[in-house]
């Protein structure tokens, strides 16, 4: 949440509020009133967010089997046993969890850059001052984001059947399309096979026989399966609209004078985009990529509606696996542990990515200011 807030502020251009007006007594009264106003939110958040999270954390360290309260005397603390089953003990639980991490890694790698670029492109197109019917295009591009993901998933199931619209379109070009949602072959496997690097049906022994965390190297490098790619296409298409809105907000914030100044300096269209628009959009890009990474690692709806983790587990994701582990396999502890491992993973990734995308000029400036202040202090002391 913090990342979102700090990133949002520059986009909306609002100056952060600081300080309070009035004397001390008034301030105290205001603070009481303030607390009164936030109490309902705190209660709701506590009841529906904090307590469930604390309960889930407890379950992830317990042997609760799904019957009665997780806090009853029958339930025992088992330490990190559930986490161990997922990370250190060779077995089916670790294998499935690693498969889900692999699948989602390729999914994030494909979806986040593509949806960001697509959203930015759409925003730039729609933001042109001389485009006719701007409102229409804006609505049209945003439309998929408003429709329920379950409804869209069902439509995609029909589009991507073996004899569906997509394959009929492909056959116009003489391409024999795959049976999308039942095709577990990995894209990197297929590309390697096509380039002659290896044979898909008879993989190199060095890759197939080296096991890392319950999966062979050959399985790790599979890439997203054909089925997963179809889901990726759908997700890119539906989410680009939402992110387009954020980019439009950022673009509209760009002062015309700056762009005109660049024009006077003789910058062409591409140079203006590279050197003026993009740096200005940095906070928005940070926001979009952060939200994208968080959303994609947690993907669940599409798998629940369309594939149930199949074909051959290639659309299994940590969120869906956590659900099945708990509700279908009665392994509540492992399910909760997966959720927390996913949380840690997302937290680390978002922090790293925030560090990468930080404003380097600002950091340098702040450093310089600090040095100056130190120097000034020294001057006074001397």
């Amino acid at each position, binding site marked *: 949440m913090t990342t979102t807030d700090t990133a949002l502020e520059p986009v909306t251009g609002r100056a952060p509020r600081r300080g309070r007006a009035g004397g001390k007594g008034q301030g105290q009264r205001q603070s009481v009133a303030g607390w009164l106003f936030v109490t309902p939110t705190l209660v709701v958040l506590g009841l529906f967010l904090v307590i469930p999270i604390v309960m889930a954390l407890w379950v992830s360290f317990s042997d609760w089997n799904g019957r009665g309260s997780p806090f009853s005397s029958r339930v025992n603390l088992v330490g990190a046993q559930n986490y161990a089953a997922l990370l250190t003990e060779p077995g*089916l639980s670790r294998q499935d969890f690693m498969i889900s991490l692999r699948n989602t890694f390729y999914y994030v790698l494909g979806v986040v850059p593509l949806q960001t670029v697509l959203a930015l492109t759409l925003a730039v197109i729609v933001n042109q001052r001389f485009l006719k019917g701007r409102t229409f295009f804006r609505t049209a591009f945003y439309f998929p984001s408003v429709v329920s993901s379950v409804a869209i998933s069902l439509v995609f199931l029909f589009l991507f059947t073996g004899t569906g619209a997509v394959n009929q379109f492909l056959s116009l070009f003489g391409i024999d399309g795959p049976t999308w949602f039942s095709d577990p072959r990995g894209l990197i496997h297929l590309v390697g096979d096509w380039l002659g690097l290896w044979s898909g049906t008879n993989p190199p022994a060095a890759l197939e026989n080296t096991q890392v965390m319950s999966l062979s190297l050959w399985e790790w490098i599979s890439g997203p399966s054909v089925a997963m790619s179809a889901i990726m296409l759908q997700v890119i298409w539906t989410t680009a609209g939402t992110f387009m809105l954020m980019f439009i907000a950022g673009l509209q914030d760009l002062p015309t004078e700056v762009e005109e100044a660049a024009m006077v300096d003789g910058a062409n269209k591409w140079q203006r985009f590279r050197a003026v628009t993009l740096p200005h959009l940095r906070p928005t890009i940070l926001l979009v990529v952060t939200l994208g990474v968080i959303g994609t690692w947690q993907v669940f709806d599409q798998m629940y509606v369309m594939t149930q983790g199949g074909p051959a587990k290639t659309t299994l994701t940590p969120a869906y696996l956590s659900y099945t582990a708990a509700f279908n396999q009665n392994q509540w502890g492992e399910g909760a542990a997966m959720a927390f491992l996913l949380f840690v993973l997302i937290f680390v990734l978002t922090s790293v990515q925030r560090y990468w995308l930080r404003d380097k000029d600002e950091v340098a400036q702040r450093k310089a200011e600090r040095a100056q202040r130190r120097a000034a202090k020294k001057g006074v002391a001397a």
Partner: protein
Amino acid sequence: MYRTRRTAALALVLGGTLFASACGGGGGFKDEGASSAPASAKGPAALKMLIASSGDAETNAVKAAADAWAKKTGNTVTVTVASDMNQQLAQGFASGSPADVFYMDASRFADYAKNGSLYAYADQLSDNADFYEPLRQTFTFEGKQYCVPKDFSTLGLQINTDSWKKAGLTDADVPTTWDQLEAVSKKLTTKDQVGLGIGVGIDRLGAFVVQNGGWWLKQDGSAPSANSPEVTQALEWVQKNVKAGNFKMSNQLDSGWGGEAFGTGKAAMTIEGNWIAGAAKNDYPKLNYKTVELPAGPKGKGTLQFTQCWGVAADSKAQAQAVDLVKALSTVDQQLKFADAFGVMPSRQSAADQFKAKFPQDAPFIAGGEYGHGPINAAGMEQVVADLNSKLESFGGANIPQVLQAFDTNASAALKK
């Protein structure tokens, strides 16, 4: 800095208070031991019933039967149709106030018996022995039969009679052995139709395993036995035919299940249960077909049985009434009424003759009640079975001994837990 710390402190205090009240307060979470004597509610009991319905016909029939019992006994029954049975059952058990009576699927039974969610009442039915023996075995955990089977279904061989005639085959050619099945499937295979289309996974392939005298687990469910000659040979025989092209798996035919491949004419024969009748009537009205018993394998006849039981919750406050309701729902008359309404097969042997007289086309299915095999019903096996199924998805290219070895490894780890 100071402000943030105070906010955090307040949030903690607030959260803590809520937390304590949520746990301490009545209703939500209760700490109770399991009891085996039936808990009987005083006065008229209000029973909750959770079912996974196949449609309006089933919902209405179950509701009518429950209402009739309620009227006779002065209790009330609220029937709820689950949209996601696994999830809603789990929620009920976790809350401590589950539905009193519910459908319990055979594949989920052992997990719930193991964690103490189910009330074992089968011995309270005086005519318990009337239910088919394999079905009662399915709902037995650690030597104790918990619940009585609601109904059951088995697999049969469906034959597209138009394709059959076109291939020049007669009634005398109906396959009764594996060799004959192979021979007719080759004759039925044309450019755009495969001889036999089989649904993916062990819920269909398992029939061949049974016909070859094998099973995934040992008889008592204590240890895996998949990596054995019986299982391996059965699967390899099917695989040989898949490779030859006279059998195909449904996912090779761009179909979700065997019935779809059969209904759309991509397969001339398939292996499905009596639910195919509904699909044929609604989705493929022009389809002409008949069902026969599955051909016998080297070790005799074999098929798979799918079943659910009437579960009664260990946490129910009105177990005596719940058991009474189950007794009313599982009489011969009521089972035949259900059969009439939504096409299920009665789980009582004494109802078989009346059923066969009424539904002669379903005779091959009910015959499987005698020699069928129930599903894998050991606790903790769900994940292992899912893994096996996913490895058998691309069946034609699967390395069967390797897949079965992996199953044995995973299953013995799961069974030890």
